[in-house]
């Protein structure tokens, strides 16, 4: 809304501050003046009138009243007495209670008077008669605002709140999100934020920003895939992740996805292991999946999927399974014995099956199995393990380790398709 400086001046006998200065005063105490432009020997104030004042600001000389109140001047206004006035009651102490500063009674009355209110006081209660052109003033807090803005917010001094020193509650979701980010960054992944709007999905916008942004995303994979493609112009190895909301038909979920364009399934699985261990998720395992390489199971639910170089986890589920408590396991004081074993198995044999046999046969003294080499030829593959034996209570002898190894050899060779590589 454009308002002429001379029109405002016309309502006052005293000379008003220069246009720029007046504009600044109005901006601080009344409505924001976006610009002041010289025009035909006058100045034009471009005022952004907020919706609650659009009714009175110019038509009912609200700007004149505001100017009068700010500058403590008497304005020449000849409007008929409003047909009716709503009365708002306010306790003097309420003004201080809300603002945190004590404004003298005289100043409160003066401000409200110049703004066109009828004001009287009985004991400590003000009775404020609001003119009909100010329908934005309905409750006592509105009156406090009128007083405060004219009095000047700059005169209200900062006060640190009083209160109990109660530490805030932890937000679990955010806590584990933060751990996840740290793990991923440590593994060399960078974080991206992609758009929530995509071409296809389950939730459609009534008013999409563009044709290719009509739906809410249902996965993070597409965005991350696009990140790899775009960054491929400048980088060879691209490792990025995102934590964000997706919107499948069933509703909103928090999801975590990561991609590494140079990785294979086993590398992504290694990262998933590290992450799930880092979050303290117990007893997770990997299963074949129809359309993707693997699904990840924990707590009786599918919590994520791995494709060749990409994985995605349902973070709402992960938060439920995550556990930050770590139980310390004493480190054995006795030396370990390492033995290697290599086994030929058919090409389609799963490592898990071989490990099960080794672990069940060796029992407690086998503390770690480390698959360090997989070698395939056309007919079969060879799996090579380091087996680490250790007792929590004594130094193991070679004979004891040999006896366990002998048992393992026999069990493995009991399977006709398997053969120890010697």
């Amino acid at each position, binding site marked *: 809304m454009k308002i002429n400086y001379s029109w405002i001046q016309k309502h006052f006998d005293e000379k008003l501050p220069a246009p720029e200065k007046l504009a600044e005063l109005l901006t*601080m105490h009344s409505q924001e003046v976006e610009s002041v432009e010289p025009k035909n020997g006058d100045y034009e104030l471009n005022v952004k009138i907020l919706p609650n004042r659009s009714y009175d600001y110019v038509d009912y000389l609200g700007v004149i009243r505001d100017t009068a109140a700010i500058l403590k001047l008497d304005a020449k206004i000849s409007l008929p007495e409003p047909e009716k006035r709503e009365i708002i009651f306010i306790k003097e102490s309420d003004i201080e209670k809300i603002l945190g500063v004590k404004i003298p009674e005289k100043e409160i009355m003066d401000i409200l008077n110049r703004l066109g209110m009828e004001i009287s006081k009985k004991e400590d209660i003000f009775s404020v008669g609001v003119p009909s052109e100010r329908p934005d003033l309905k409750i006592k*807090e509105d009156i406090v605002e009128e007083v405060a803005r004219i009095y000047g*917010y700059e005169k209200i001094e900062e*006060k640190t709140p009083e209160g109990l020193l109660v530490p805030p509650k932890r937000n679990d979701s955010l806590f584990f999100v933060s751990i996840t980010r740290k793990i991923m960054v440590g593994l060399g992944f960078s974080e991206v934020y992609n758009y929530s709007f995509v071409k296809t999905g389950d939730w459609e916008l009534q008013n999409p920003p563009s044709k290719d942004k009509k739906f809410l995303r249902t996965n993070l994979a597409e965005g991350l895939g696009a990140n790899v493609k775009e960054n491929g112009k400048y980088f060879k190895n691209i490792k990025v992740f995102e934590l964000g909301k997706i919107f499948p038909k069933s509703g*909103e979920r928090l999801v975590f996805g990561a991609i590494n364009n140079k990785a294979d399934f086993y590398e992504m699985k290694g990262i998933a292991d590290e992450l799930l261990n880092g979050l303290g998720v117990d007893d997770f395992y990997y299963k074949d999946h129809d359309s993707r390489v693997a699904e990840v199971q924990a707590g009786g639910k599918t919590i994520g999927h791995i494709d060749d170089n990409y994985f995605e986890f349902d973070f709402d589920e992960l938060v439920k399974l995550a556990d930050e408590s770590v139980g310390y396991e004493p480190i054995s004081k006795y030396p370990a014995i390492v033995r290697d074993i290599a086994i030929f198995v058919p090409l389609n044999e799963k490592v898990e099956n071989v490990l099960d046999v080794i672990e069940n046969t060796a029992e407690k003294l086998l503390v770690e199995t480390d698959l360090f080499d997989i070698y395939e030829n056309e007919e079969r593959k060879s799996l090579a393990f380091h087996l680490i034996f250790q007792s929590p209570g004594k130094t193991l002898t070679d004979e004891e380790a040999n006896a366990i190894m002998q048992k393992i050899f026999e069990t493995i060779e009991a399977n006709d398709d398997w053969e120890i590589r010697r």
Partner: protein
Amino acid sequence: MADKSKKFIDVTAPGKKMERGHLHPLTQAMDKAGDVFQSMGFEVADGPELETEYYNFDALNIPADHPVRAMQDTFWIKSKEKFLLRTHTSSVQIRYMESNQPPFRIISPGRVFRMEATDATHETQFYQIEGLMVDRKTNLANLKAIIKIFLQRFFGDENIDIRFRASYFPFVVPGVEVDMKFKGKWLEIAGAGMVHPKILDKMKLNPNEWQGFAFGMSVDRLAMIKHKIDDIRLFYSGDLRFLRQF
């Protein structure tokens, strides 16, 4: 004196190339803000991005005919119920107040959506941090202190000053616009005010017993000022040439 038997190592040759990952600058900004506010006793709350009209508008005293509800400002979903994408994280404050008892001290960082033509300073999605403190005596002078302390800590600059300007938001009264004096210039940084009694009333809190302040600011803007970033769209570009700088 150098040991002659020592193997020759050229300390001026480049080190082996290592690659650390990088946290998104908005994550870093929200973490930093979260740390400052948590140290002042504020809890971090979150809520859904896909919201109902009630939590985004009705509960916040935004009238049914208010222009922000229109299609040119808010993304509405094609659905039987009136779903929308939240336009601010004030909805989180309502959800929090419904299920907790005062006093409240919370902040709610999160992604919000506005129907806007995009340019270097406008995006259809961005991040906000909103704060809410409700207690028996929490006043406007307290709001001033909290925002000033936050900005000084966030930018690591004790010289930062703030000022309040008269403004209007349906959910606060008095309502103010907050400017920050940063390196000699006044910049708009937040909207704030005292929580409107109607909202407290809706939350079944007696406005004569409880009062407090609320504020909201754009995380994107905070990060842009902090790192001198001139285009908001960079945050959502996934461009590693940008992200690796943080």
